[in-house]
């Protein structure tokens, strides 16, 4: 099969012929139909998050089951599925207490002494987040996918595989936004827009979108923002405090920077909660004004929207098909696998929402 292989950070990926292993007992071979190109892929491409190389990036996809291992009963050939990097073992402390997205068990990967799922001429290709979706085929653990209804368009379904689940999940699960709350979201990329959409669905009375790109702020309005602030003014915190007359109940940081994480905390009212969704580079420290804790302000992380994706993703599909979840606006372009480097460069510019690779093109 063909795949986009990353051999060196900050260098373009090359389309190469890659060998894929046969499904093990609990593995599923998936033929992706659509794969989103996500800003998180960029973090691993540019080395702000280290990863073993060579690898095949991509972690947001939807496709069709091609073949299943002998112990798999959940899906069969032909089923439509969304993949998810939050593969869960199902029996560790985190899984059994309902925190499936925090499962750290290595058993959803192949053990180091076993043949790797992906290789090129005998050389191991490290599977990215147990998925590697910039490829014509994916071999994944059965706990890394969810079955979805067949009337869901695959390109929209792919977005649910990461950005939607991360953004909407942060609002629903990590923060637990209540109806009537005042919410601000910093960063209007795919995840930030999903958080805005989620806050609107949750019934927030005010949803403030903060970004530096006017076109993204327009998109934010289209998916549920009630107010927008262009942070180029240099005083986004002041503008939010003025607009809300004292701060937000909930803020969400969807960029991954020290400065914006700190701003998310500064935008809170007393008792408010800041949720950091963005991937802050390894080694970066975040500084907070200690006295703010006396006002019961809180800050927390969110990983993949604290998801239980086998429950969440089919619900998000229903939200889309019933008109509540606005995924059509999230896709700026459909591309071929060979154009993946161009798509990642477009993400760097911050001007576009999301490119989606279509494998049938």
């Amino acid at each position, binding site marked *: 099969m063909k795949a986009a292989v990353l051999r060196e950070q900050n260098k373009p990926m090359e389309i190469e012929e890659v060998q894929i292993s046969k499904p093990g007992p609990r593995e599923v071979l998936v033929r992706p139909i659509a794969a989103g190109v996500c800003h998180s892929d960029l973090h691993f491409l540019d080395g702000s*998050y*280290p*990863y*073993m*190389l060579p*690898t095949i990036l991509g972690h947001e996809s939807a496709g069709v089951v091609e073949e299943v291992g002998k112990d798999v009963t959940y899906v069969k050939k032909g089923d439509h599925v969304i993949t998810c*990097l*939050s*593969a869960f073992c199902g029996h560790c402390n985190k899984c059994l207490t309902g925190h499936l997205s925090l499962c*750290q068990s*290595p058993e*959803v*990967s192949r053990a*180091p002494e076993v043949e790797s799922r992906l290789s090129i001429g005998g050389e191991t290709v*490290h599977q990215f*987040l*147990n998925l590697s979706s910039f490829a014509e085929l994916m071999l994944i653990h059965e706990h890394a996918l969810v079955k979805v209804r067949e009337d869901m368009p695959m390109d929209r379904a792919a977005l649910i595989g990461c950005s939607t689940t991360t953004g909407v999940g942060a609002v629903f699960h990590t923060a637990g936004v209540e109806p009537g709350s005042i919410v601000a979201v910093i960063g209007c990329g795919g995840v930030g827009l999903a958080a805005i959409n989620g806050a609107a669905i949750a019934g927030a009375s005010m949803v403030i979108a903060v970004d530096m790109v006017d076109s993204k702020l327009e998109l934010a309005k289209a998916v549920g923002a009630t107010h927008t602030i262009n942070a180029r003014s240099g005083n986004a915190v002041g503008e939010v405090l003025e607009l809300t007359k004292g701060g937000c109940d909930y803020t969400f940081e969807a960029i991954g920077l020290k400065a914006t994480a700190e701003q998310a905390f500064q935008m809170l009212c007393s008792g408010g909660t800041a949720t950091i969704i963005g991937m802050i580079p*390894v*080694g970066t420290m975040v500084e907070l004004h200690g006295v703010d804790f006396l006002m019961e302000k809180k800050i927390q992380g969110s*990983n993949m929207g604290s998801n239980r994706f086998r429950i969440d993703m089919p619900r998000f599909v229903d939200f889309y098909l019933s008109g509540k979840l606005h995924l059509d606006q999230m896709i700026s372009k459909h591309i071929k696998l060979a154009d993946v480097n161009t798509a990642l460069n477009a993400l760097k510019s911050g001007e576009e929402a999301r490119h989606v690779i279509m494998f049938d093109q």
Partner: protein
Amino acid sequence: MATERIKSEITGTVWKILLAEGDSIQVESELMILESMKMEIPVESAVSGRIQSILVAPGDAVDEDQDLAIIEID
């Protein structure tokens, strides 16, 4: 002989150790792989030298900033 301690940048689990005590290692070459939140994270040596001791084993849980190995610097 001067030594350098190789530390973990992140909380995770030791997935695979790529070299053994006594092996020589070059700067920026990989010593082991950690797994954290489904990510395979390489641990690279900051110096060239010889691996004096490896302080962890596959499957061990490691904390951020924990010593993983000691390198005798060339």
